């Protein structure tokens, strides 16, 4: 049996799925839990929720127990984060810490119990969106990785990759650009279009640089929904059929 890595280690197979990335939660041993974490990552407007909904239905039909978790959805932190977003009194550091608190709450109260009970956890964004957003805002990357050392490495991470031009057209035709998605807090100017383009370009670069570090499986998100879903299912099927997870029939 391999030991839990002493430090948060980078890519190239040093991260073991289902184990803590770093120092972990000493009071919550998670070894040999049967459940699996499948994370879907990607910037806003890339189609994550749609894919997760379809994947969930498909998994459930096959008899898997599925639990969904999503960014800022913790009972503990959601109201606080909404308040902070609307008031503008927080800076990048306190934002990072609030997001980490939200993640920790969901990890301990939703994700770990689900893993213990043998569920498939579908994560709509995992820690990587937080790392990308904070990295773009100049927060120290080594510190961020140590901070999230209590996170569990997912068994699969899918990155829905898109280029900034396609993303812009999609976001505009769907709902328009909002303050945070446009990185307006970075005060790069008053023009929301320019700000959105610059911010999302930086985010996409940040995701790409994490792709090797964390072993993302990259899917081209410019394709039609059903083609992306086919890819997802093929990867997930191959993984689950080779794993020890049981199906309740």
């Amino acid at each position, binding site marked *: 049996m391999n030991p839990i890595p002493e430090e948060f280690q980078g890519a190239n197979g040093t991260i073991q799925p289902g184990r803590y990335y770093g120092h972990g*939660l*000493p*009071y919550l041993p998670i070894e040999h839990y049967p459940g699996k974490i499948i994370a879907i990552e990607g910037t806003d407007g890339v189609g994550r929720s749609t894919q997760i909904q379809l994947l969930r239905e498909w998994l459930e039909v096959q008899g898997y127990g599925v639990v969904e978790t999503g960014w800022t959805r913790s009972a503990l932190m959601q109201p606080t984060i909404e308040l902070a977003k609307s008031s503008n009194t927080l800076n990048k*550091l*306190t934002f990072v810490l609030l997001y980490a*608190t939200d993640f*920790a709450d969901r990890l*301990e109260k939703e994700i770990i119990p689900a893993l213990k009970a043998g569920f498939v956890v579908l994560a709509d964004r995992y820690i990587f969106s937080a790392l990308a957003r904070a990295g773009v805002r100049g927060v120290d990357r080594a510190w961020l990785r140590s901070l999230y*050392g209590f996170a569990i490495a997912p068994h699969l991470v899918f990155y829905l990759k898109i280029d900034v031009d396609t993303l812009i057209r999609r976001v505009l035709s769907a709902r328009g650009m909002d303050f945070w998605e446009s990185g307006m807090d970075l005060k790069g100017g008053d023009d929301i279009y320019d700000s959105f383009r610059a911010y999302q370009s930086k985010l996409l670069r940040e995701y790409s640089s994490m792709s090797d570090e964390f072993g993302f499986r990259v899917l081209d998100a410019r394709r039609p929904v059903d083609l992306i879903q086919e890819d997802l299912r093929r990867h997930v099927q191959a993984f689950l059929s080779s794993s020890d997870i049981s199906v309740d029939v």
Partner: protein
Amino acid sequence: MGKKKNALTPTTFSLLHATDFADRLLYNIVPPLKAGMIVLAERYAYTAFARDVARGVDRRWVRDLYSFAVRPDLALYFRVPIDVSLDRLMARRVKLKFYEAGLDMGWSQNAQESFRIFQGKVLDEYDRLVEEFGLSVVDASLAITDQQQMVRNLVSRQLERPTLVETAVNQ
């Protein structure tokens, strides 16, 4: 927010306090330091190092977490035996607070008993911090005037040391 019965885990407890600390650091600590003022902080990152580790959080993780903090020029640790602190708290208040007594850990249903267990672990961690970070220990079981005299001596000695700014100006 959050501090309802059993709502916080050791890690979310730790992270929320770090968030609060980051906010105070950036708004209340760094600006006066830049203005050349003296900042008196009642509790600092060391409180988190002792309290969060007593709750089972990883020692290195919580130190890394607070690496954005400014290292204090002088850190005073008022050391007191558990019985004395319990007596003082009981004299002041009727009831021990939930997290202060470590009741979230489920070690004992009895608040005083839980406090004793929890604070025992906290004090052990503080002893470790004295070594690691060179905290100046003040015997808090002494009379207040004696303690204050010690504090003033320590502070005076600290203030007589040339600061970086003065050193730079004098050169």
